[in-house]
């Protein structure tokens, strides 16, 4: 076809609704919050949550993934713009991730924590990683669908970020249910769960986000 013909064909249909960054964030947030609300609404938060929160290590268990989620979420709509990949500010995640690493290293010098690091056993690990992964499924899917409406130039990376946002949000919510307060447990296994969601997002993104 002649290029001029193509242009006149395309211009017969020029109207479009520009994407809205706030809508992308709001829908992703909703996709994280809804399964969590169902989960916590059914099974409830842990017994004595209020009392447990007097222990700063329990507060950190919720605040760390929450801060990571809050910093990563605004990066998602950026990636729906083709030129947005260059503008991502993921370096801001360095602070909470370094804090998590520091806490991990410090806890290694705490004999009491070392002693009880296997308190959950295999069941605890499966419960933690499994539930966070389950809670991530809906937000990963919604995040990828939203990215698909955009023009993603790095499908693997964008999908990974959608998974990371979903996983960290799910982990923050799950922490209110979780009774294992040893940093050696939650730092490791929350990271594994978030990592799995990130990996899944990346693999799916590579398939779903081409155009």
């Amino acid at each position, binding site marked *: 076809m002649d*290029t*001029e013909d193509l*242009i006149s064909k*395309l*211009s017969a249909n020029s*109207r479009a609704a520009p994407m809205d960054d706030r809508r992308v964030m709001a829908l992703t947030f909703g996709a994280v919050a809804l399964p969590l609300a169902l989960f916590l609404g059914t099974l409830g938060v842990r017994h004595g949550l209020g009392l447990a929160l007097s222990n700063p290590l329990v507060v950190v268990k919720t605040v760390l993934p929450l801060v990571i989620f809050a910093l990563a979420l605004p990066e998602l709509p950026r990636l729906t713009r083709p030129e947005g990949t260059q503008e991502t500010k993921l370096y801001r995640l360095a602070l909470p991730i370094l804090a998590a690493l520091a806490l991990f290293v410090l806890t290694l010098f705490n004999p009491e924590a070392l002693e009880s690091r296997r308190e959950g056993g295999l069941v605890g690990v499966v419960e933690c990683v499994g539930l966070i992964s389950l809670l991530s499924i809906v937000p990963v899917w919604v995040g990828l669908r939203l990215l698909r409406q955009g*023009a993603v130039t790095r499908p693997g990376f964008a999908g990974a970020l959608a998974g990371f946002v979903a996983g960290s949000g799910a982990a923050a919510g799950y922490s209110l249910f979780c009774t294992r307060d040893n940093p050696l447990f939650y730092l490791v296994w929350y990271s594994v769960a978030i990592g799995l969601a990130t990996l899944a997002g990346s693999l799916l993104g590579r398939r779903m986000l081409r155009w």
Partner: protein
Amino acid sequence: MQDQVGTTEARWAALMRASVAGDGRAYARLLTEITPVLRGIVRARGRTFAPDQHEDIVQEVLLSIHAKRNTWREDHPIKPWLYAITRHKVVDAFRKRGASVVLPIEDFEDELEADAGPDPMARRDVDVLVGRLDIRSATIVRAVALEELPHAEVSARLGMTDAALRVALHRAMKKLQDWGKGT
């Protein structure tokens, strides 16, 4: 220069704003204005591709700009957006076509005919090699390269287009060269 860049940016952004609001004429003007720029980019990046493929790639880029026009935000500059889409699609188009690098056969024409000159000492060897080709290719090689009949006459006789003849000839000559080196 800086000034000019600024005005293009502002004009294209204004045209795009009008376009997504439903002004088809503004959209046609915008696409018409960016097409030569796209051609320039495609030509600069795609020297190894035949010129007729360049226009195909330009059209693929235009289609993508159209399909993704909802991803431009009015409060963002339009040129980086346009170039990001163009870059993505051009790289993609070249990757898709990457396996087959097209070289215009015209460049080889003189060389091929010179190589195939009827040297009496080599004639017998050539006959043996040509005999190993399929009948159609052998006919083409004998008629064009050995008897030096004009292309138009041979293609008319075989009922093929000139371009197809040249391609067939080139392939046959390539085979003969390979065999010649091998024996």
